[in-house]
């Protein structure tokens, strides 16, 4: 007999799928552009700055990419832990820790991007 799941679990399940489909597109282009299609010389600040600094679409792409990535990562780890029926106390503690890590990662990611976008450095 299937257990009823809470609305929150259903929402995060759906968001995991949704962010996953987005990430499939994001990662495919990200890896192609930054790992495969870049064929000459070392990647340094100037290269990244030139690539991202001038384009509105690259900026929007990366500012969306980071939160999607962080959500998918932490929610994925939580889904694995939830499979093993953790106790109430563990659940609350983990969720608080994950929220803190998530917000921190998104903040650091956004700061990094803003610095990489900077014009005329």
């Amino acid at each position, binding site marked *: 007999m299937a257990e009823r799941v809470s609305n929150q679990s259903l929402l995060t399940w759906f968001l995991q799928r949704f962010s996953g489909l987005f990430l499939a597109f994001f990662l495919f282009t990200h*890896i192609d552009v930054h*790992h495969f299609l870049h064929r000459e010389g070392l990647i340094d600040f100037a290269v990244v700055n030139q690539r991202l600094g001038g384009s509105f679409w690259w900026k929007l792409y990366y500012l969306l990419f980071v939160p999607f990535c962080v959500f998918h990562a932490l929610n994925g780890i939580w889904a*694995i832990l939830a499979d093993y029926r953790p106790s109430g106390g563990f659940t609350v503690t983990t969720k608080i820790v994950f929220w803190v890590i998530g917000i921190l990662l998104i903040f650091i990611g956004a700061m*990094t991007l803003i610095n990489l976008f900077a014009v005329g450095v």
Partner: protein
Amino acid sequence: MAFKGFLKNAYIDTNLNKNVGTFAYLFHRITGIGLVVYLIMHTYVLSSAISGHQDFNKRMGLVQNPFFAFLEILLVAGVFFHMLNGLRISICDFFGWSRAHKVFFWIELVLFVAIMIITVILQLPKMQSGYYPSI
């Protein structure tokens, strides 16, 4: 505590159902955990941009050599297995094609092998003579 015997349970789970679905499930989890670890390392390396472009160049220089070019192959393997398997799960779920999930797994595997062959061909020059010789 529910986490007692975590590894033992995982071992029993995978041994009770020896089919491609279980294999895909296990690898989806392993690659998922690996990618989260990579995400944190990636953030660490790139966040040096916050303290200026000299720091960024220095730290980026550390990870652009033949050894990391080899590790990049493992990264791409993890990303594309997780991506293709995630798409397989989504397609089977949303379109109600769960009964054909094994067929989709073999399609996934063919695509994965093709992507990995391309990856190795692209990474080989980086692994042999320094990083990115001009072509």
